C-alpha cells in the first residue's frame, strides 16, 4: 500500500524525463536481464497503517503476559519509570545516525559521555566505552582485548550465564583461541588456581553468578593477578549499587548486561553491553568512545574519540569489527540512573535483594523445597522443587511466571517490582500444588 515515497507519479515522470528516461527500470541497465525479477515478489500486498496496527496487535496478543515475574536468568523485570520510556522516544534521539558530525550531534555525544561517566562511577573503573551489543558480547570482547602474543587462553567460570559462555566460545572459535570453563562447586567457581597456566590471558567471572550466588570476587581476582593474567568481571549493574564494585575487587575489565537499567524485557533485545576498563587498557577497548575537547573558541565539545582503534581505520588489524552499538539503550540507561539517583538505585538493589530473600525463606518453609547451594545471594537463588512442572503450570495459570528450571531445581528471582502480597500469593499456590 505504502512505501513512504512522497513524490507523485507526475513528479516521478518529471524526474525520469530529466534523466532522459521513461521507466525507472531503465536505471537498472547494469543488472543482467536474466537476473531481474520478472514477476512480483511472493509476498502479501502492502497494507494501510490501520491494518498493520491491527495485525501487529494481534501478534502481540498471541503472547502470554505475566503480571508477576519471578524469573530472571539474565533478563530482569525491574520497574521502568515513565520518563525513562518517553524521553528515548523523542524523534531526534531516535532517528539520528552515529554522531560523526559533532557540530550537530552534541546532544547524543553528551548523553554518551554522561553514560560513560555513570558506568565508571558504578563500576569504579577508569574508562567506559559507549556500549556494545549485550552482556554476552561484552564478555567476548573483553576476552579478546586481554589477549596478547604470549597469553591467548581465556578462562570463564562455569557459573556464568550459559549464553555468555556460549557467546565467548563462539568468538574464540572465530579467532581460533582456546576457552576453558572453570569448574563449579556448591554453586560458585572452584579450583581456578590449577587452571591459571602461564598462557592464560584472562579469567571471566560473573557476579552475582548465574545461580544468583555471590562469588568471592576479591579472592578470585587476587589469584588471577598472581598468575599474571587479567581479571574480567561480568556484573549486574543494579547489584553494583550495594555490592563491591569491580574496581574494589581488582578487575581489569568490567562488563555486564545493561538491560536492568531501564530497558524492557522485550523478549531478549535490544539490550545493552556494558564495558569499562582500567586506564591501562583504554586503547584496547573496542567500539565507540566519546571524548571531551574544545572548539576553536574554547567551548566544551564532545567527539567520537580514539577512532584509530576502530575498524573503519584499522580494518583487518582492528581487534573488533563493531560499529553500530546500542547508543539509544545507553542513553536510556543513563537516563534511568539519573532518574533513580544514588539513593533510588540503592533502594532498587536493596528491595530486590530483600524480596528475593523473603521469597526464598517462604518457599523453603514448604516440604521438599530447599536451597540447593549454600552461601550469600543477591536477588536470585536455586531451590529444589518437587512436582516442578505442575507448580510452574499452576503459577502460570494464576498469571505468575515462575522460576526457570535449571539443573538441580528452579532458579527464582525477585525484583523491587513485586509486592509482598504477590509473593505470598505465589508461595500459597506452590504450597497448594505440593499439598495436592
Amino acid at each position: 500500500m505504502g512505501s513512504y515515497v512522497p513524490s507523485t507519479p507526475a513528479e516521478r515522470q518529471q524526474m525520469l524525463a530529466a534523466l532522459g528516461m521513461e521507466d525507472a527500470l531503465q536505471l537498472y541497465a547494469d543488472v543482467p536481464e536474466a537476473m531481474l525479477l520478472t514477476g512480483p515478489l511472493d509476498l502479501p500486498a502492502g497494507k494501510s497503517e490501520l491494518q498493520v496496527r491491527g495485525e501487529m496487535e494481534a501478534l502481540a496478543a498471541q503472547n502470554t503476559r505475566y503480571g508477576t515475574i519471578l524469573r530472571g536468568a539474565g533478563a530482569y523485570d525491574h520497574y521502568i519509570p515513565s520518563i525513562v520510556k518517553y524521553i528515548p522516544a523523542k524523534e531526534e534521539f531516535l532517528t539520528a545516525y552515529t554522531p560523526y558530525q559533532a557540530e550537530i550531534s552534541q546532544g547524543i555525544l553528551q548523553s554518551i559521555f554522561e553514560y560513560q561517566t555513570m558506568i565508571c562511577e558504578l563500576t569504579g573503573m577508569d574508562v567506559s566505552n559507549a556500549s556494545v551489543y549485550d552482556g554476552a558480547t561484552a564478555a567476548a570482547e573483553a576476552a579478546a582485548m586481554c589477549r596478547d602474543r604470549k597469553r591467548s587462553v581465556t578462562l570463564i567460570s562455569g557459573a556464568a550465564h550459559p549464553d555468555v559462555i556460549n557467546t565467548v566460545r563462539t568468538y574464540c572459535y572465530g579467532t581460533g583461541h582456546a576457552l576453558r570453563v572453570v569448574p563449579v562447586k556448591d554453586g560458585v567457581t572452584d579450583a581456578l588456581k590449577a587452571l591459571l597456566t602461564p598462557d592464560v590471558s584472562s579469567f571471566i567471572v560473573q557476579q552475582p553468578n548465574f545461580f544468583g550466588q555471590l562469588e568471592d570476587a576479591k579472592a578470585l581476582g587476587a589469584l588471577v593477578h598472581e598468575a599474571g593474567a587479567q581479571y574480567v568481571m561480568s556484573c549486574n549493574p543494579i547489584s553494583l549499587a550495594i555490592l563491591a564494585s569491580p574496581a574494589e575487587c581488582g578487575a581489569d575489565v568490567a562488563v555486564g548486561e545493561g538491560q536492568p537499567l531501564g530497558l524492557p524485557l522485550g523478549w531478549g533485545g535490544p539490550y545493552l553491553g556494558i564495558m569499562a576498563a582500567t586506564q591501562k587498557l583504554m586503547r584496547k577497548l573496542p567500539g565507540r568512545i566519546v571524548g571531551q575537547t574544545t572548539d576553536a573558541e574554547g567551548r566544551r565539545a564532545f567527539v567520537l574519540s580514539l577512532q584509530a582503534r576502530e575498524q573503519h581505520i584499522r580494518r583487518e588489524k582492528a581487534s573488533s569489527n563493531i560499529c553500530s552499538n546500542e547508543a539509544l539503550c545507553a542513553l536510556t540507561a543513563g537516563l534511568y540512573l539519573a532518574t533513580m539517583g544514588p539513593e533510588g538505585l540503592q533502594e532498587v538493589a536493596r528491595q530486590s535483594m530483600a524480596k528475593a530473600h523473603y521469597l526464598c525463606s517462604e518457599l523453603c518453609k514448604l516440604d521438599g523445597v530447599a536451597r540447593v547451594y549454600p552461601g550469600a545471594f543477591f536477588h536470585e537463588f536455586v531451590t529444589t522443587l518437587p512436582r516442578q512442572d505442575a507448580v510452574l503450570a499452576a503459577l502460570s495459570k494464576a498469571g505468575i511466571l515462575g522460576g526457570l528450571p535449571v539443573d538441580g531445581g528452579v532458579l527464582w528471582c525477585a525484583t523491587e517490582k513485586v509486592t509482598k502480597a504477590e509473593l505470598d500469593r505465589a508461595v500459597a499456590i506452590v504450597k497448594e500444588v505440593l499439598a495436592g
Partner: protein
Amino acid sequence: MKLIFERSVPGRRSAILPSCDVEAAPLDEAFARQRELRLPELSETDVSRHYTELSKQVYGVNCGFYPLGSCTMKYNPRIDEEAASLPGFTGIHPLAPEADTKGCRAVLDEAARYLCEISGMDAMTFQPAAGAHGEFTGVLLIKQYHDARGERQRTKIIVPDSAHGTNPATAAMCGYEVVNIASSADGCVDLDALRAALGPDTAGLMLTNPNTVGIFDKNILEITRLVHEAGGLCYYDGANLNAVMGVVRPGDMGFDCIHMNLHKTFATPHGGGGPGAGAVGCKDFLKDFLPRSALMEGEGRLQVRAFAGNFLVVVRALAYLKTLGREGVPEAAKNAVLNANYLMQQIKGSFEPAFDRVCMHEFVLDLSRFKKETGVSALDVAKSLIDRGMHPPTMYFPLIVHEALMLEPTETESKQTLDEAAAVFRDLYRQAYDDPEPMHTAPHGTPIGRPDEVKASRTPVLRWRQD
C-alpha cells in the same frame, strides 16, 4: 550546556518506589560496596529539561534532509515504533516458555518469510544485533562449512579495497587472512585481480552489490561463479540492498549468505548509533550452521549473543514490511535509485561525480579538482552544508576516491527536497570560488564549531570529574 552531573543538587530525588514491604536482607560486609555511589541527584523536572535540551542538539531524519551515503537514512515510520512498544512484546521474558511466546515467534517467522523472499535465501536468523555482527555471523557460516568438510586449509577471505572497514575486520575476527584486491576504475571487482587471488586456500569473498561507489557490478554472475569454482563461498554485505530489493535478489546473483541491516533498508531507527539488527540469511546448505536462537534450537550450535536478538527492532521491521508488501518493496528501491540519479544530475555541472554514469541508490562526488582550484576541501563543503540546514553526506569514503562526498538521498525524500538540496550544492560550489574563507571555518550557526580532535585523542578526557 551543562552536564547532568553539573545539575545535581545533594538530596534531590524523584518519588519512584514505595518503601519496602518485607524485611531487609542483611549483606555481609565482605561483599558490600565501600565506595560512594556518585550518581546525579535530580528532580524529574531537571531530568526532563536536561534531555529535552540535549534533544535540541541532535539532527535526526525527522529534522531534515540526511543524505548520508551508505547509511540509508530513510524516514522511520511512527507506527513501527508503536508496534514495538506494545506491552505484548515489551513485557515478554526471553526465557518464557515456548507456549507463552507464540506471538514473538510468529513475528520472527513472518519477518523471515519476507526477508527470505526479498534476498533469495532459504533460512534466516535474527540473533545478530547489528550489521557488523551480522557479517561476523555470516562469515562464521562459511568457516563452519569449510571446517565440517575438513577443508581447514581455506584460510583466506577476499575483500575488495573499496569495501567498508567492517568487512576486513570481520574476516580477521573469524581467523581469516584478508586478501585485499584492487578495484577496477569504476569501483567494480577487477576480474583479473580476483582470478589471481583465488586458489585452494580461498574460503570466500565478501562483497556488496551495488558496491560502495553506488554501481551495480554487471559481472556479478561471473564473480560468484569464479569463487564457487575455486571452492569458496560468497558473502553478500546487504548494506546497499535498498537499491535493489524487489528488483533483483542476492540469492540469484550467486551469493550463499547475506546480512541485511534492518536499521537501513527496513526503516528501523538508528538511535544515534544503535540498536540496529543484522538479520542473516543463507542458502539451504548452510542452514545447519546458523546460530542458536529461538527459531534454531539445539546443542552444538554457535551463539553470537544472548537470547533471540534485538527482537523489538525486528518487530519494527516487520511492521514496515507489512506496510510495503509486494508492490511497496520494489517501489521503494526504484524511487531510491531514481532520487539518487536525479540529485546527481541536478548537482552535475558544479561538483563532479566520481563516476559519470547511471548510479544505483547513492553516488560519490570527487572534489579533488575542486579542492585544487579553490582550496576548499570535502570536509569544508560538508561543514558548510550544516549551515544550510542539511546533514552532510558521508565524507572521505570510499577510500578509493580522494576528497569523496557520498550522497544517498533515499526514496523518502520529495522532488522539492532534492531540488533544494541541489541548489545548495551549486551555491556552495560557486561560493568556493568567490568567497571560500567562511567555508574553511564552517559551520557557524551550531552550538559548537569544529572540535579539536587532535586534543581529544592526545589527552583523552572520557568521563566527567568533579573539580
